[in-house]
């Protein structure tokens, strides 16, 4: 059942009641471990559980195979139990996947979209998916689950060999016949929950049969359209959980900071539009204002050289520059390795660096000071940067609108930490984990969780920042080389562009195996290649195949082309093509990521996959043109 946000508290009370009334009172929490929202959401949840006296076990997981493995002991559970999935589970029929009985309640808080339409079943009280009303894909947009109709559609596909409706084939693929087997090959991730008990068709007249066929066709189209256009990200799970904390009167600066970090991550990775970000940001700003400590505000006097250390953590709204890790870098390095600036000015080349230095000169920031650590700079240069950048950025092909945003910062003692800095620090710590090693990923996840507690773990934050800086430098340098060496395939008018890291010198860089780093790369490559073609319509979706890990697995990620404004979902068009390409080549993904547009396949299959993908996408384009012409 998809539960709207207004019933969040009821779901939580149900979890508490189940836990207190069961012999096994522990709540099993499985959290995705590849993004900052998961880290923040798990911290919010555990903090809440601690305050409310609920017992829990938290296990970070990276794929559905691990979810199944950890849920395996529950398949024979007799007592009532709750399994809480954070940022995983919404896109799949988890109950069938994990073979869980009905006495195990599954609660899913997941920002991945589309939500499997089988969850939209108001009769199913055992599987609850929390989707807020202001989500880009609210409950009303999800087709209501109709088991009988869906089974009929599936059966008609199985039996019809001369179907003239290619959408039905797509429906079979999208509706769960994705048979991504694992090593045993037995795992069926079929989303159908069973077949009709009565296998024989009823005897009906031709009119009734035609009506039934029309109903099946409409159903197939409805579901097909839903799965085609709804691949992306919904509301951050941390925002939902913060709402819950607020309703239970447990919210404080820590919970607000967690929500801020999760929201900022979605903006930085272009998973939401700026308008959507501002909408949610304003709600958080209201909470920030409520929790602001008036005693702490008097510590800093205007124009004074002396600032007193803050003994309590203070979170406040501010307008921040979208320059990567500016507070921890030099002005020049921060500009050079900010993806937007690097893509526009091509700072991996000497000419780009010259342009950058020209910008600094125009802003009257001496190059000597621009290459000095920002924290050691006099305040006058900070003011210079903020006042002159809006004026001279457009002259250097940089839009001021993309260089600043309304954000938040955290202040503790003499440290000031921006929300985007925290996002990068957490991502730096998360990407330290080896993608194929669960132990390593759990350790990285725990480090990232510890970093949120800045009162005692500022050193962990600083370590994360250093790792993030290395990541940003590697991305700009290596991707710049790939562009210069012509490794990015797909020309000016291609449907999309792609790159295989294994074909470049970057294959030895261990970072380029992690899905998050690859996504960051994809965004940079998308923008950088479009800038090279310098036309208004040069931006294309990007597919990046990462370097193989020790097990010979490569991760493929994809990003959308254009930014969709408003509160609509940033749809990723590659979810369906990936599935169809894998089906056509009989490629079995060895690891099922929680995101539809991320795939893990053997390195031997990557070249064939990328080749076939072009044909599939071309077919989609032809079908779209046909539909448009019709």
């Amino acid at each position: 059942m998809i539960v709207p946000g207004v019933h969040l508290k009821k779901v939580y009370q149900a979890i508490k009641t189940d836990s207190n009334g069961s012999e096994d009172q522990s709540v099993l929490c499985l959290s995705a471990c590849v993004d900052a929202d998961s880290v923040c959401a798990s911290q919010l949840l555990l903090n809440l559980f601690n305050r409310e006296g609920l017992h829990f076990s938290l296990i970070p997981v990276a794929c559905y195979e691990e979810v199944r493995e950890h849920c395996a002991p529950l398949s024979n559970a007799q007592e009532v139990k709750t399994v809480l999935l954070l940022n995983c589970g919404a896109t799949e029929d988890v109950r069938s996947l994990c073979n869980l009985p009905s006495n195990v309640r599954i609660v899913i808080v997941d920002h991945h979209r589309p939500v499997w339409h089988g969850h939209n079943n108001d009769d199913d009280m055992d599987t609850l998916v929390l989707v807020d009303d202001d989500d880009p894909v609210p409950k009303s947009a999800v087709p209501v689950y109709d088991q009988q109709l869906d089974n009929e559609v599936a059966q008609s596909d199985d039996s019809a060999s001369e179907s003239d409706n290619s959408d039905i084939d797509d429906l079979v693929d999208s509706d769960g016949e994705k048979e991504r087997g694992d090593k045993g090959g037995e795992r069926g991730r079929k989303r159908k929950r069973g077949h009709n008990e009565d296998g024989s068709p009823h005897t009906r007249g031709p009119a009734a049969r035609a009506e039934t066929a029309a109903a099946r066709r409409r159903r197939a189209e409805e579901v097909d359209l839903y799965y085609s256009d709804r691949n992306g990200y919904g509301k951050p799970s941390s925002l939902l959980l913060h709402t819950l904390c607020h309703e239970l009167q447990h919210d404080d600066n820590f919970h607000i900071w967690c929500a801020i970090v999760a929201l900022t991550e979605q903006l930085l990775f272009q998973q939401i539009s700026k308008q959507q970000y501002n909408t949610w940001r304003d709600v958080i700003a209201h909470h920030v204002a409520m929790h602001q400590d008036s005693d702490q505000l008097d510590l800093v006097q205007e124009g004074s050289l002396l600032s007193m250390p803050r003994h309590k953590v203070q979170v406040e709204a501010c307008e921040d520059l979208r320059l990567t890790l500016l507070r921890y870098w030099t002005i020049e390095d921060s500009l050079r390795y900010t993806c937007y600036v690097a893509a526009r000015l091509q700072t991996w080349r000497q000419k780009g660096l010259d342009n950058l230095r020209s910008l600094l000169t125009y802003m009257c920031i001496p190059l000597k000071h621009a290459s000095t650590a920002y924290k050691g700079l006099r305040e006058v240069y900070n003011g210079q940067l903020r006042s002159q950048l809006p004026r001279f950025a457009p002259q250097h092909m940089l839009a001021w609108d993309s260089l600043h945003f309304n954000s938040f910062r955290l202040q503790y003692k003499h440290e000031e930490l921006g929300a985007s800095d925290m996002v990068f620090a957490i991502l730096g710590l998360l990407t330290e984990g080896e993608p194929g090693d669960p132990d390593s990923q759990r350790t990285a996840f725990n480090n990232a969780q510890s970093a949120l507690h800045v009162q005692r773990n500022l050193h962990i934050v600083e370590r994360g920042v250093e790792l993030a800086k290395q990541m940003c430098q590697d991305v700009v340098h290596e991707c710049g080389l790939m562009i210069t060496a012509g490794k990015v395939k797909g020309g000016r008018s291609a449907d999309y562009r792609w790159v295989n890291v294994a074909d470049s010198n970057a294959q030895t860089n261990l970072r380029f195996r992690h899905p998050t780093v690859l996504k960051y790369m994809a965004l940079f490559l998308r923008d950088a290649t479009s800038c090279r073609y310098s036309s208004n319509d040069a931006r294309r979706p990007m597919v990046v195949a990462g370097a193989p890990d020790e097990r010979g697995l490569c991760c493929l990620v994809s990003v959308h082309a254009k930014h969709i404004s408003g509160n609509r979902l940033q749809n990723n068009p590659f979810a369906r093509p990936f599935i169809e390409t894998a089906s056509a080549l009989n490629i079995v993904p060895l690891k099922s990521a929680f995101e539809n547009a991320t795939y893990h396949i053997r390195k031997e299959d990557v070249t064939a996959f990328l080749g076939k993908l072009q044909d599939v996408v071309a077919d989609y384009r032809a079908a779209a043109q046909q539909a448009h012409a019709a």
Partner: protein
Amino acid sequence: MSELGRRARELLKELKSYGNRDLSPYNEELVRLIFSEVDEHNAQTEAIVSELRRQQEGVEEGQEVDEAIATTMCLHYECIKRNKRMLLIYMNERMQRLREMRWTLRALPEAQKARCCQSEIQFYNDYSRVLSVYMSRAEGLGMDLTLDTRPPKDTFVNVRGLKDAGEVIISYGRATILNGTIISLPSEEAEPLIRDGTVEVVEWDDGFGRNKQ
């Protein structure tokens, strides 16, 4: 010159080589040699002082002490101080470890006892008796403080798995301990797992507003 204080340094290095918790065998021979070294330095110093006094009786007043003699006296004095300091460090460190064993292991293992000298065994027994009196119901708190490795702040504690230990049965149900998982456990049930290194306590604050520093 490099021989000065060498024995004391060896003594401490030997203790350090046994880690942070275990005791090295009490090196009575080396301690005796260090004492004899101190006595030697002391004898040298006294010889110089008596010579100086003898010289001062036979010469005019106001004559200054030779610089070399003054330096030699300082050197002997500093060597005595250094040896004394290192011996005290050695003794103190061994006493700390004995105290730690009383708190964590609650009894002195035979292997460790065999490495102690008689004075140390006496110290351990006296300390154990004093602690027992302090914790006793009749004369003290009436509470066994050694049950917890650290003062418990809550009835439940968040722990992180350090190794895969499988499923454990606890008072409120079952929990699977894997490397990197976070589990909420009752303090008294977490204690044996913490002691044998299966889990470690997670050092998290309860939000920003509740400053635990």
